[in-house]
Structure formats: C-alpha cells, structure tokens
C-alpha cells in the first residue's frame, strides 16, 4: 500500500513569489494534517482536515497561507506571497480518524523542503 505522497520534494523560490505543495493521503484516511517544521525544531500543526472540512486552522497564518481539500482526498497548501521566514519543511500526515477515546496512528509523508531566497 502506498504511503502519504507529497510533491515536490524540494522547492526554491524568491521572496514574494507564490508556492504550492500537494499531498495525497493514504487511501481511506479521512483526517489530513499539514505541519511546518522549522530548522532544528519539531513539526507544528498548521491545519487539520476531517474529510473536506478544516476543523483546526488556528495556527495557519491566514494572511498569506491557504489550504484546500476538495472531495476530501488530496490537499494543497499555498503560500502567497512567500517570505524569507517561510523557509521550512512542510509535512503532510494522515490517519483514519480517531473517535473520542480511540487512537489511530498518524502516517507522515516525506515532506517538501522550501527555501525562500
């Protein structure tokens, strides 16, 4: 079974340019996450989707970041315009979807390393 797929693996852009990242979760996984991982830090949640609904986007900088998950499968994360401080690894993860007292493992993709010059 294929894991979480992300593209591109690397992206280099100049500041003020737009950029988009794509994620395809594991088939059947209803919950999708986007994380940002700054150099030397752990991942931090940007947004979580349950199917096509964004249920937690409190950490998403909404002035320049946007995300969508049309049809509840693939997802795209966009930055427009990019700033120097956006240089980081952007990780996508998915899981089946946990209930009130259950746990389901999050599976991570390989991430996209963004460099803003």
């Amino acid at each position: 079974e294929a894991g979480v797929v992300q593209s591109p693996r690397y992206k280099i852009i100049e500041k003020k340019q737009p950029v988009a990242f794509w994620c395809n979760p594991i088939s059947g996984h209803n919950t999708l996450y986007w994380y940002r991982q700054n150099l030397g830090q752990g991942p931090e949640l940007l947004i979580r989707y349950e199917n096509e609904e964004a249920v937690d986007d409190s950490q998403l900088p909404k002035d320049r970041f946007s995300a969508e998950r049309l049809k509840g499968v693939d997802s795209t994360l966009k930055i427009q315009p990019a700033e120097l401080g956006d240089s980081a690894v952007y990780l996508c993860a998915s899981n089946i979807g946990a209930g009130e007292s259950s746990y389901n493992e999050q599976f991570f993709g390989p991430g996209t390393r963004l460099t803003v010059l």
Partner: protein
Amino acid sequence: AQTVTQSQPEMSVQEAETVTLSCTYDTSESNYYLFWYKQPPSRQMILVIRQEAYKQQNATENRFSVNFQKAAKSFSLKISDSQLGDTAMYFCAFMSAGANNLFFGTGTRLTVIP
C-alpha cells in the same frame, strides 16, 4: 496548553551500547498519549513507540522501551543494542485523548558511532 521539552539537543552512543533520550511534558489532561518518533535524513517521521497514559506498564517494542513516570511527567526512550540505522532525529510528542493533534518537542539528534 501542552508543552513538550527535550533537553538533549544531541547524543551519541557506541554501536551495540544502550542510550536513553529524555523528555518531559506539561499538561492538565488526565487521559493522553505519548510518542517517540524517529526522523532520518529522508525526513519521513516514523513512529517508534507509543504509551497510553492510563497504562502503568511501560511500552516496549523490540530494542526500544520507555520509562513513563506520570507523576513526574517524564517519558524517556531507551534504545538497547544501538545500531547504525538508529542514527536520526528523535522527537517526543504528546496528544490528548480524542483531540487528534500532536505536539512535538524540539528533538534530539542521535548518532550511533561504529
């Protein structure tokens, strides 16, 4: 708010030896999960081991085991018989039961020396 602290930015261990990575956390929750993830240079986060807070028994997965001290809010990872493939970043993470969001520490870079 939950916080996860890893106070060891870097660690090294001789191949076949044992190493322990430290993690402390802060929460007011009573029901939660704790995790150790491995991130090799390929960047893909891999779950190493999981501990449910309501379980007193420490989790074990082959060469990996944890020392979970709930009252002290401590969750350390012990790697026995270290192998070269264990070289990676290791992240401690917290999740409230039912919340579905992970909170990560800053990581410990482990190097296994041949």
